[in-house]
């Protein structure tokens, strides 16, 4: 019987089917961070339980860390105590921790892949909804709540309903200047924030295949923004090439066996999906969001639409009021005061290269505050090795130290109330980047152009110039 990629991996991980359609699903890798793990460790301790497989866990400090002076003690007492708690818990329970100062520290969804921990065919969970990022390698990866973090710690398993399967196919060639971020913002704008609730999405088609691993991670990362449990892409030569030689990737003869297995991970030709959507790559334009959920996006040069249905009108209007926009309005020319380049969506080396390539020899607009927060220590070191730090500094961008930063504004990196921020992150919810902050989600290239111009522009002509540089 033909199977989807999702079914192949899921079915292989079912320890036991339980009455009522639930399955005990085995988890190969469990990633943790400082914000959603302390209560889980406490729960285990309170019940007198221990971690079943601490060797299958990996911890980092990312959500709540400062992005300046990471070599010094954390100033904010609550943040400090949360990070210390993680350090204590990991030491006590034997969990490998890449904390502040460690050369592997970084955003949990950036370090898993770059260390080669994330591999095809695995089940991976983390107490964070963007765990879907790891699906780019052909893994089943999804976010869980803290009670489930405790369950995985105790049993290495979860009790779950099997999600339905959706396939999103993007065929054709992307126009110059259109990136993976634009692809996923386009898809979410079409399907809506709840459009994939209850599904696990496989991304397929020639446009998806042509993406680098970084681009594929950007696409899978935002699966949750349309409600999907996760997203995945069948592994191929691009995947294997990326993984080869990474610290935790299989080596030598084990590598050959791994690749032989990974090559079996694809959806069979006749496999059935519960839902299918198709998109044409050439129809996708550089995107921007205008509202307070990631589904409220449009081509940058378009006009803000009216709500799709009357029932949605009150929430839609509330959202536009918060943003200070009106239906029918164009955003071109809108002054922007903040640009944030970072987050698990777009903070990898390829993203930094894109920004540096555009701003080389240019200067940000004087009124713009532009910060770049690399996804990991390794990304930061690579950027320095390539001299990108110099290019960015010369353009007036501030290169910070790794963490989640203004993606969720738990640390001091906040966008002021009322200010507009073009951000490469994944959520434009009210207050996400600080109370009252107004977020417009976009690609790294759009963010770089906006920082230089100080306002939103139709990027088409700028893109030509960028393309001609290569």
């Amino acid at each position, binding site marked *: 019987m033909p199977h989807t990629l999702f079914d192949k991996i899921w079915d*292989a991980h079912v*320890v*036991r089917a339980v*009455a*009522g*359609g*639930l399955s*005990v699903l*085995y988890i190969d890798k469990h990633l943790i961070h400082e*914000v*959603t793990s*302390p*209560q889980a460790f*406490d729960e285990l301790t309170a019940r007198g*339980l221990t971690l079943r497989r601490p060797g299958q866990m990996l911890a980092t400090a990312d*959500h*709540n860390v400062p992005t300046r002076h990471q070599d010094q003690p954390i100033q904010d007492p*609550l943040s400090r*105590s*949360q990070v210390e*708690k993680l350090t204590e818990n990991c030491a006590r329970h034997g969990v490998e921790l890449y904390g502040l100062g460690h050369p592997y520290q970084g955003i949990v969804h950036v370090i898993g892949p770059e260390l080669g921990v994330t591999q095809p065919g*695995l089940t991976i969970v983390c*107490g*964070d909804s963007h765990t879907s990022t790891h699906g780019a390698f052909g893994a089943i990866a999804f*976010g*869980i*709540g*803290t*009670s*489930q973090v405790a*369950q995985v710690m*105790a*049993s*290495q*398993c*979860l*009790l779950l309903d099997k999600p339905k399967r959706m396939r999103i196919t993007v065929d054709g060639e992307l126009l110059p200047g259109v990136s993976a971020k634009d692809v996923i913002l386009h898809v979410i704008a079409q399907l809506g*924030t*709840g459009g994939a*609730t209850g599904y696990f999405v496989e991304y397929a088609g020639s446009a998806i295949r042509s993406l680098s691993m970084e681009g594929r991670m950007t696409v899978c990362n935002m699966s949750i923004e349309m*409600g999907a449990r996760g997203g995945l892409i069948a592994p191929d030569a691009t995947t294997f090439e990326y993984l080869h030689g990474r610290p935790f990737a*299989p080596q030598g003869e*084990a590598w050959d*066996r*791994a690749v032989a*297995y990974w090559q079996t991970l694809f959806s069979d030709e006749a496999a059935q999906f519960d839902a299918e959507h198709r998109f044409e790559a050439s129809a996708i334009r550089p995107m921007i969001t205008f509202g307070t*959920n990631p589904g409220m996006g449009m081509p940058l040069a378009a006009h803000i639409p009216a709500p799709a249905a009357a029932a949605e009108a*009150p*929430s839609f209007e*509330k959202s536009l009021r918060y943003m200070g926009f009106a239906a029918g309005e164009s955003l071109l020319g809108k002054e922007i005061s903040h640009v944030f380049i970072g987050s698990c969506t777009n903070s990898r080396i390829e993203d930094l290269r894109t920004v540096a390539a555009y701003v080389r020899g240019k200067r940000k607009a004087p009124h713009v505050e532009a910060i770049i927060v690399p996804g990991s220590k390794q990304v930061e070191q690579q950027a320095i090795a390539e001299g990108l730090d110099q290019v960015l500094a010369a353009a007036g961008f501030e290169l910070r130290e790794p963490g989640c930063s203004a993606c*969720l*504004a*738990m640390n001091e990196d906040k966008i002021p*109330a009322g200010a507009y921020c073009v951000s490469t992150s994944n*959520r434009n*919810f*009210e*207050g*996400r980047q600080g*109370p009252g902050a107004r977020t417009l989600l976009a690609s790294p290239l759009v963010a770089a152009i906006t920082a230089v111009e100080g306002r939103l522009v139709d990027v088409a002509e700028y893109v030509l110039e960028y393309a001609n540089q290569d």
Partner: protein
Amino acid sequence: MEKFATLRSGVVPLPIENVDTDQIIPARFLKATTREGFGRNLFADWRYAADGQPKPDFVMNDARYQGHQILLAGQNFGCGSSREHAAWALYDAGFRVVISSYFADIFRGNALNTGLLPLQVTPAELQELFALVAQDAQAELTVDLPSQTLQVPGRPEPMHFELDAYKKECLINGYDDIDFLLSQESAITTFEQQRTWIF
């Protein structure tokens, strides 16, 4: 986890769609390392002005709805971040049931693991409930988990809701998944010895 079987209570109406967990509990309040105390910051940015004063136009600050334990919310409630703190904050603020026509997956799971019932009705029923509360702020609903019904004043037939049989048992008995998963020990150990995809 506390047991939950039945509840008769007034309602707090929040007719907004796509309420994300960043609204339910903003990230800057997630620095605590225990589960308690999140209730005071529930919906913080909608509930309090920048100076900390309650905003009079937010429903939780409306005297008519004080003490009500059922939240009635627009569709796709709980989307966004996986933070279980959202469910803890609702619970800590006194809510025991959230009614919506649609819940985001992770939130639904987190609520059930917290002892908070995510009660899903149809979009038409949701409109009916909003209309009822708009008319009578003190209208009391009766949630009966064993029979999976919601009794609504003035409505001859109760509304029916679905819930996974296992999850229902857990909620009624105050069990959570850890106990069940630990009971699978031998099956898990056997499974671990047979994994062929670790290289």
